[in-house]
């Protein structure tokens, strides 16, 4: 019930933020006045929440290695699964924005895009791996995978500062973008609420599936 309220509050906050953004926020970014710029709020929101979710998964994985309770692995798996969906949305919305503003769906010379895609592939590997294991040994390997995979996240976040990024500059800390602060904060809070609701839903579902397997196998 508690997580459902978080999810509903998140959905409400996202909808209100969308209304604010559609009516109040400036459509002009980098000298271009176009409605596609408003995608920024959603694009950056799902990216940040998705990456924070991978940190949650890493913490849950560390906790699992310290004490191998299946629930900790399920939380990590659920967090990665939802983050993966969010990062997919980040890539897709970024591609749509790029098509209008860069005149290009994708730029291989841009370090932020390429590192984000690498993160996507790494965690796709994690999810595929977990589709094939359902025991503590498998969970342990998955936890190690998850902890090592997280190295790719700060690299992606800092990539535009670590290397020259021809197309992808800083999005929030730049004078070329006039962000509607309250709307962005509301969008971020809303997406976070939705994220944590989805994660709770997923791990409880996995726990229920596991329970049903145990019940099923214990029958004569």
């Amino acid at each position, binding site marked *: 019930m508690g997580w459902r309220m978080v999810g509903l509050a998140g959905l409400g906050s996202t909808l209100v933020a969308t209304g604010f953004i559609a009516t109040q926020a400036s459509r002009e*970014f*980098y*000298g*271009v006045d*176009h409605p596609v710029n408003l995608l920024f709020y959603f694009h950056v929101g799902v990216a940040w929440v998705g990456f924070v979710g991978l940190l949650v998964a890493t913490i849950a994985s560390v906790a699992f290695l310290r004490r191998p309770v299946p629930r900790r692995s399920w939380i990590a798996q659920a967090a990665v699964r939802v983050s993966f969906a969010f990062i997919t949305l980040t890539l897709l919305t970024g591609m749509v924005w790029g098509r*209008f*503003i*860069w*005149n*290009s769906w994708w*730029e*291989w*010379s841009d370090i932020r895009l*390429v590192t984000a*895609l690498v993160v996507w*592939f790494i965690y*796709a*590997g994690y999810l*595929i791996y977990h*589709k*094939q294991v359902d025991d503590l040994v498998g969970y342990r390997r998955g936890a190690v995978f998850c902890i090592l995979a997280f190295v790719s996240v700060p690299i992606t976040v800092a990539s535009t500062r670590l290397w020259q990024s*021809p*197309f*992808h*500059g800083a999005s929030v800390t*730049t*004078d*070329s973008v006039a962000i509607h602060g309250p709307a962005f904060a509301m969008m971020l809070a809303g997406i976070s609420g939705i994220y944590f609701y989805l994660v709770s839903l997923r791990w409880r579902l996995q726990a229920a599936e596991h329970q049903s397997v145990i019940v099923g196998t214990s029958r004569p």
Partner: protein
Amino acid sequence: MKRRTRLLVSGTVTVFAMTMVLIGTLESSVPFVGPADLGPTLEGKRLQVEGIVQGLTVGPDDLTFELSDGAGATVLVRYPYSGQRPLTLEEGRLVVAKGLYRQRVVEAYQVSVRAHEDPGSP
């Protein structure tokens, strides 16, 4: 998930990843140059030329403009397009033209605009 389905999913993701890496490798292997670097040695080669758009002319089915490095060197770019003209492709924008360099002209198949690096643009 059944073993066959798992293999199918894993196989599809692997093939997709390999294709992406191949495309990325091919794209990034195209030399990245400025207008001042162009000369007979690069004649007939596929290049990525970076510069500032000047003298933009809009034709019925192509855009023609000069790319400048801001230090006097320029090169002519011809960019065929259909449909709506690219939004940000305008005078003073920093762009990367990808295409074939032939007889002192870049026949571009793609022109990407570096919007993030153009805070002073209109």
